[in-house]
């Protein structure tokens, strides 16, 4: 499950950066770029909080 979430998160990060590269290369329009970045943002913020802090919290729990 965590692996699946991580993949979705990284897709979100990809959708944040790659569209602007395509826009720079004039392969997509600015509207498409903005929409893809918004989707990437949602994908990242919905999935990343579910796994990104787990290691830190596990470390804290181990020390207690």
């Amino acid at each position, binding site marked *: 499950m965590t692996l699946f979430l991580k993949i979705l998160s990284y897709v979100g990060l990809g959708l944040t*950066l790659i569209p602007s590269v395509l826009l720079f290369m004039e392969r997509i329009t600015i509207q498409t770029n903005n929409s893809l970045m918004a989707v990437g943002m949602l994908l990242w913020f919905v999935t990343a909080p579910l796994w*990104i802090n787990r290691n830190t919290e596990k470390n804290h729990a181990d020390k207690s």
Partner: protein
Amino acid sequence: MSNQPIKKLVGPVKEYEREPVPLAGQKGWRNFLGMYAGEHTAGTEFVIGPLFVAHGVGAIDLFAGLILGNVLAVLSWGLMTAPIATNKRLTLYYQLERICGRTTVSIYNVVNALMFCFLAGSMIAVSATAVGIPFGLTMPTLDTWLPTSLGWVIAVLLIGFLITLVAIRGYAQVARFANVTAPWMILVFIAAALAVLPGLGVSHISEFWAVANEVIWTGVPLEGVSKFTFWHVMFFAWFCNMAMHIGMSDLTILRYAKSWKYGFLSFSGMFLGHFIAWIASGILYAAFLQSSDFSSEFAPGPIAYAAVGIAGPVCVVVAGWSTANPTIYRAGLALQGIFPKLPTWKVTAWVGAVTSLAACFPALVMRLLDFVALYGLLLMPMGAVIFADFYLSSKFGIRPEMAYHKKVSFSVSTFMTWLLTLGICLVLNLGFGVEIFFLGLPGWFVAVLLFLVLSKVFNPKNKEVLA
């Protein structure tokens, strides 16, 4: 309720506030790499990059100044802060207390807390420029110092209230949220810059340098703004975190490092946040200037929205929030040490109120470069005192950590060192026209010299203590 934020922050982990961090409490290099990368990609980056453009920095001056200044900053962390931190493994406050006494540390905490309030206030104002977009708020301009409208004041106070509420009740959640936002934010900075480059005339990467010189960092300041050179950029990049490296605030962080070499891991923050993000936000601002016919409006929210749509202002709000929130919390903790009987949440609430009021004044954003330089300068002398106490005091016949050994709560020599250093810096500034960005370097040497001389004068029995 009074202990909730501390409990949430500290959790089950011991903080070692008045004892060295033991081997079991030390952390690996990955923690520091990520911490520095996250901490230095923040809301301030949306302001600093554009201000370099407004101050007419030339392209070669910017790139060379940032590279050299950031390398010097990394060396300061690696060669000055980290060796002391990993040798002593004490917090800044406790280390200072052992040298200067508890009363001096209390005064230091008040100054520190005030600076934190103003820094957080500038970030609240930056967030307000993004939140205000759907409400058509009148945005501040480069020469705006006072609140622009009633709507601006309401927006700022509302954001300040929400941020303070979170700082009171849920710092741990904010810390976790910051871990989530950091990787996304740096990508938004890069993406936004890439998105606006074609509009500036860059259709191929080979054209970037020509456009950088002719359109972005032209070397010509905006009307009414002072001219910045290579030296301004270099010294700003070196000293914008002066409080943390030369000022030794990061003793508190780096005392957990397994090796002193981890101080060099600050390069992740310097070259992601203080290089890539500053360049990216400068490009964004140049694109805004071109499209707005050199409007004097200075509002990161609308600028980011014009570049990449909704992800832009969300990034501005998140960046501002993730900087302001822990800053308010730290200010609360600093003051709580002075008023130990007051619950932390009450102190934090007062700090939030002061911060929110300060945020109503856009001057905090427009003069952020000066403020950041002042912040570092004010705290730098105490970092110099720690350095001199650690490396030089024994060689000059002065007992290290004198306040601890003599059991005094107020060290005249260190307090005088602080005041006289700042006084001399003021004279250099007002009398000789040395700009605030350049005062840190001579000020540090002055502070070290004053500490050694004054310690000799005010502690004449030092040799007896040594014996």
